[in-house]
């Protein structure tokens, strides 16, 4: 029976793994991800989930275990945050290049220094080139639903890549809100058992995975990953439609548009700031100000064509980032500008909420005001706007 309860994002993530009937969980606890591991181990211990729970000594080992087990044909799950993800870094490439469909929630947390435990995207953004799909999440319901969808997307033969499902530290991980839990039988129908073909370490069918490769081969291997990443756009849309049909919740695929059709100014957000921005769009619309919102759900692959279509129907675009590439700008903005090369509209970057600073309604209003102003003027006063930074004019 479908059950609805108020739970944390961490619980939703662990329960997503349960509903996906993962075979192996290998994870190392780190704030604010710890409860994902605790809940998952409870599910295994209580007999709710028939999986191997592997205690490892570090995140490097957690990812190594997931790589090996997925290569052996298992459906695997792990979770991490911040320094833990940084420690996994070198193994992430192996999962990407070997096309291993691992699913991992990352509880976005500031990477030191200085040490902090609050929400920032400077842990996942630097992992954009590892061959992992990246999805940013807005609500606990979406956490649960995306874990299930992630396996379906990643295990699709046209994709066969791993995915990070990214949720903001504390703002989702430690916050309870109502979540509907689908029936596991319905999830089974939606997400059949993983049938490995390209990589399975079965003694009766010997293969080598990740062998030493000279320059004669690696360039083609890179192209394979790039092609899979490009293919995944279509698969993401398909899986979203199938999911919406099966569970009556539609996330609109790569991006979600809100009030964009006749908008003078559109803000592109990712993570929980999207949620805070929604009522502000309503507020502006009520006041006769034509603003719209684009929720960037997938950062990898980047929804290049969709962002171009957005640019075609508006006069200025603002891009919110919770991370910065020093000396350049926010990573999401950099990609938006790259996608919009040749489009003659202002594209402004807003940096706010770094280190977990609260992104307040007034901050989001500033983003809309600035983008509306650029729409009117036809150019931006400033390319990269730091909001709420003491001593810096926004």
């Amino acid at each position, binding site marked *: 029976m479908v059950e*609805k*309860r*108020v739970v944390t994002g961490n619980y939703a993530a662990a329960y997503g793994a349960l509903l996906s009937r993962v075979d192996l969980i290998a994870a190392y606890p780190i704030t604010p991800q710890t409860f994902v591991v605790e809940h998952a181990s409870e599910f295994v211990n209580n007999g709710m989930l028939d999986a191997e729970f592997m205690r490892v000594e570090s995140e490097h080992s957690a990812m190594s275990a997931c790589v090996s087990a997925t290569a052996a044909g298992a459906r695997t799950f792990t979770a991490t945050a911040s320094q833990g993800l940084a420690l996994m870094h070198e193994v992430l490439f192996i999962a990407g290049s070997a096309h291993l469909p691992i699913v991992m929630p990352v509880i976005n947390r500031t990477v030191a*220094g*200085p040490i902090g*435990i*609050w929400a920032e995207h400077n842990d996942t953004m630097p992992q954009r080139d590892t061959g992992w799909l990246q999805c940013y999440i807005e609500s606990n319901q979406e956490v649960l639903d995306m874990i299930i969808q992630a396996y379906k997307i990643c295990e699709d033969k046209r994709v066969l890549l791993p995915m990070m499902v990214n949720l*903001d*530290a*504390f*703002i989702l991980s*430690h*916050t*309870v*809100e*109502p979540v509907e839990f689908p029936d596991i039988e319905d999830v089974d129908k939606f997400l059949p058992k993983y049938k490995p073909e390209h990589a399975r370490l079965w003694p009766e069918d010997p293969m080598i995975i990740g062998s030493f490769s000279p320059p004669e081969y690696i360039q083609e291997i890179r192209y394979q990953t790039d092609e899979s990443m490009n293919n995944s756009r279509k698969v993401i849309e398909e899986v979203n439609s199938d999911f919406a049909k099966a569970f009556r919740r539609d996330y609109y695929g790569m991006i979600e548009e809100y009030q964009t059709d006749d908008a003078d100014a559109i803000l592109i957000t990712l993570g*929980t*700031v999207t*949620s*805070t921005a*929604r*009522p502000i769009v309503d507020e502006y619309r009520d006041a006769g100000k034509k603003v719209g919102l684009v929720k960037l759900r997938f950062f990898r692959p980047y929804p290049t064509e969709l962002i171009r279509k957005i640019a075609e129907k508006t006069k200025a675009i603002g891009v919110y980032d919770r991370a910065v590439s020093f000396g350049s700008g926010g990573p999401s903005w950099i990609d938006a500008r790259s996608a919009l090369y040749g489009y003659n509209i202002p594209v402004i970057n807003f940096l706010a909420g770094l280190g*977990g600073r*609260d*992104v*307040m*309604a007034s901050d989001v209003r500033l983003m809309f005001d600035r983008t509306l102003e650029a729409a009117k003027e036809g150019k931006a006063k400033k390319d990269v706007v730091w909001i709420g*930074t*003491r*001593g*810096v004019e926004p």
Partner: protein
Amino acid sequence: MYEVRFHGRGGQGAVMAAQALASAAHIEGNYGVAFPFFGAERRGAPVLAFTRVDKDRIYTKTQIYEPDYVVILDDRLIELVNVAQGLKEIAVAVVNSQKKPEELDLGIPIKTGVVDATSVALEVLGAPITNSSILGAFAKTTGEVKIESIEGGIRDIFGHRIGEELGEKNAKAARAAYEKTEVGTCRGERKMEVKKQWLPTYKELPLGAATRPMQTDAGLVGPGSFIDNKTGSWRTFKPVYDKDKCNMCRFCWFYCPEGCIYDKKEEMVFDFDYCKGCGICANECPKEAIEMVRD
């Protein structure tokens, strides 16, 4: 929509109370969200938790600055923290206290519900854990949520966390507190100080935050700033030392995580400016020369 701020101490279960209220709201068909103050939690230290309730889905993911209700799990916190911060004249308080509403001074004269939740908890649960009882008082004082829904919310959140039986007991505690809650108006004479925070511009902040001892308008920062930050205020229990039973084995000195116990050759001496009352010393003492008593 209404917003609630819970004041408790780390370990008192303020977060579970906030979550159970969200669940109670959910039972009534409302949308309930609850979250802790996004901080590093420490046992005994003043902590905050929040609940937001509306009839429709809540999208706002910001923190709460001007709550409609403030719930205080321990009336001694009134001396330690500014419980009135951000409160409007129409706000309502719910306090665990043995005093009457008129005897409490929250720094703002507002409608206040009071219950001796500690006694209720001791009676029903056999432990001074007040996070369930206080919710009964919340239901009675505010009328925002039915006591039956509070019981349901407690069964859900507490039940999933600590087992069905304890969930049921805690629901009973809430009901008992509901019956005993007294509603009145508190006084507002106390000058509530807003604790100053050191907020330098990026230019004033030392490069990379490599900080030397520095006096700021918010007090000392950098090495030695603990002189200002007397963590003894986090204490709920206090170690009482019996010199006659002590054999000077110094286990307490060795195990004290705060370095608050001094070896004075003839006896051990406790530094109550910083002792947080964790009780490790009493637990480790082989001679039972240390007893933890309510501070």
